[in-house]
């Protein structure tokens, strides 16, 4: 029972109990992923809600990042990866032949583990998505989108005087917020974040976490994290993955305070992982 005592100490500002369930944005049914012969994801069912932060937690190699990359078909760029089962975005199968993965990725944006700004100016980094998708009619509109995206990524005040400077010259935390701004500028519906803070120091991490909480108002956010405290702080729903299976999925508070599965309890109390 020391498990309960331990998890009680974790503070959870972001995980206030939800009064009503949001509508389902992404529904996965019986998803299996193979890397060559390796069965990386085994029969995962999950409903991810809109305007919610959903956290995927689990030990290294458990498949949480792999599953995240299925949600915008980034696994398509890996030759040996094969995805089976259905993943529905707003009720539409994203692996349907008629769906263009390129357009899908415009709707489902992604932020990566390591900040990866392009070696271009800050402005061009943010304007990248709107330009390739033709979201604006003129320069003024583009300026507006860039400003709004940088504001939304809490980077405007730091970046507004150096929009022409290279994005690679910023600090790590700023670079990651620039990548978030870049993803937001494409006006996606879903934002996938693959361990977005693992390369950052604690202060930058706190800024990003605050930002994620704000992004919830407009987007469906899915975040993969190694840090259970982070999952507890930022998410409302949590899914625990172990050895390719999704062991447990539910309200964050419930997962951390009264997990149903033994394995979940062991992981969050630090006994496996």
């Amino acid at each position, binding site marked *: 029972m020391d498990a309960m005592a331990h998890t009680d100490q974790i503070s959870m500002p972001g995980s206030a109990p939800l009064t009503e369930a949001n509508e389902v944005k992404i529904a996965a049914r019986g998803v299996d992923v193979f890397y060559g012969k390796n069965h990386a994801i085994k029969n995962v069912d999950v409903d991810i809600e809109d305007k919610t932060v959903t956290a995927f937690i689990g030990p290294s190699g458990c498949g949480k990042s792999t599953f995240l990359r299925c949600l915008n078909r980034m696994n398509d760029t890996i030759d040996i990866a094969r995805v089976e089962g259905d993943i529905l975005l707003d009720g539409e199968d994203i692996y349907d032949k008629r769906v263009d993965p390129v357009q*899908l990725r415009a*709707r489902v944006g992604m932020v*990566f583990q390591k900040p990866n700004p*392009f070696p271009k100016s800050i402005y061009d980094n943010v304007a990248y*998505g709107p330009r*390739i998708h033709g979201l604006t009619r003129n320069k003024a509109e583009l300026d507006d989108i860039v400003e709004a995206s940088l504001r939304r990524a809490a980077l405007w005040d730091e970046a507004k005087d150096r929009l022409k400077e290279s994005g690679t010259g910023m600090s790590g935390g700023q670079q990651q917020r620039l990548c978030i701004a870049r993803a937001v500028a494409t006006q996606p519906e879903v934002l996938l974040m693959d361990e977005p803070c693992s390369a950052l120091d604690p202060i930058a991490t706190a800024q990003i976490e605050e930002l994620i909480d704000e992004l919830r108002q407009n987007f469906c956010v899915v975040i993969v994290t190694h840090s259970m405290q982070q999952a507890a702080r930022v998410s409302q729903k949590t899914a625990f993955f172990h050895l390719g299976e999704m062991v447990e999925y539910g309200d964050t508070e419930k997962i951390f305070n009264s997990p149903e599965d033994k394995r979940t309890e062991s992981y969050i109390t630090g006994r496996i992982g």
Partner: protein
Amino acid sequence: MSFGTLILAVIVIAAGAFFLSRRKVLGLADGDRRRLHSLPHYHGMHALLLAAVPALLLLFAWSVLQPVVVDRTAVSHLSGENYDTSGERSLAMSEVRRVADAIDGLIKGGKLNSDDLDGLSIDDLGRRLEETGIPVLADVPPQILDSARTYRSASAAGDLIKIGLVLLLALAGAAYGYSVAHPDLRARNRTEMGVRALLVAAACVAILTTFGIVLSLLFNTIEFFRIYPAHEFFLNLTWSPSFGGGSDLGIIPLLWGTLYISFIALLVAVPLGLFSAIYLAEYAHPKFRSVAKPLLEVLTGIPTIVYGLFALLIVGPALSSVYGRGGLGWMPSDTAVITAGLVMGIMLIPFVSSLSDDVINAVPQSMRDGSYGLGATKSETVRKVIVPAALPGIVGAILLAASRAIGETMIVVLGAGAAARMSLNPFEAMTTVTAKIVSQLTGDADFASPEALVAFALGMTLFVVTLGLNIVALAIVRRYREQYE
């Protein structure tokens, strides 16, 4: 004792020092190698280096200096009006060496006893030399013969002293190395220093040789400008050397030809090379790439003379049949700027594509992920992210290709023609700096004439141009390399 035997003797002595020192050290440590400062073979190596290196250095220094000293003693016998200028003296010295060699041949053949040599009269010796059929002057002048005698005795003495000193030094080094061998000796550190010195020496040889080449170019260029005005060379618009004198040696038509042909070559090589690099790096299946890339790189190893033949025998006639007299009539002959340019471009494709492929591959995968994650297509990612990120490297590759094009010779000799001409028509024959260097030096002109010396000035100009391009290319590559990670 010949040179080879002497080296072998030094090696034997050094090897002996190695084994003896190793045994001594192990003996002092009661056979327990843990009590040694360094591993046993380092102790042996220390003695080996002490024995071999000074002895071999002396041997090489002596071998370089001895002929100079011997020549100087021998030349002192040559005096009189026939041997006033240095040219005459050096001619006589080569005769002296031949006579000395002939005497050596006589002695070796048993026809002459070396003890009899001093008593032999000049006529007698001359007759004997004639009998052997060794080609020497029919009547050897007495001075030459005297000189040859001195030459032989000085060489013999020098060889003897050399052998003695080298062996002595090797033995002394071996003895010293053996005497200082001790378990506490920092043999490993000293051996490391020896290795370091060896590597530094190797690097110095390469650098000094380059300096030597540049200096010889420079001195001959200065010599050229002494007899031919520099402003004529750089500003004159005609190139018409005539070996009778009064030539026009303006570099501009040659530079024009060089740059025009290089430009056409790059026009062919850059797009094709870059596109194939992008295909290989971004689109091709890894299996295809692993076969195709080495194949492309093999193409860079084809000797340029083969490309030259290709230009001369296939490309030139093919172009001529369309654009020449039989066709459109623009092309007076098979050899033309376009022929050489096209073939040179083909030669440079693998060069550009291999280097570009490397830099494109060096762009981190996270850049591609970031772009795909935003919904960009493959070609958008290539155009907007990968090529800009790899651009410094690509520019570097292009500049390196350009400097190769400028320095290319054989394709031009065979494909571009020999007429120094300034024209905008790519179907005309023109020629380049490199081709003219070849033709100026392969004639039988007097080496001191401006027509021959101009080759050095041309070479120097070429050197400066390609060096500048290489420096710019390296600077660009280095300046922008750290833009990502």
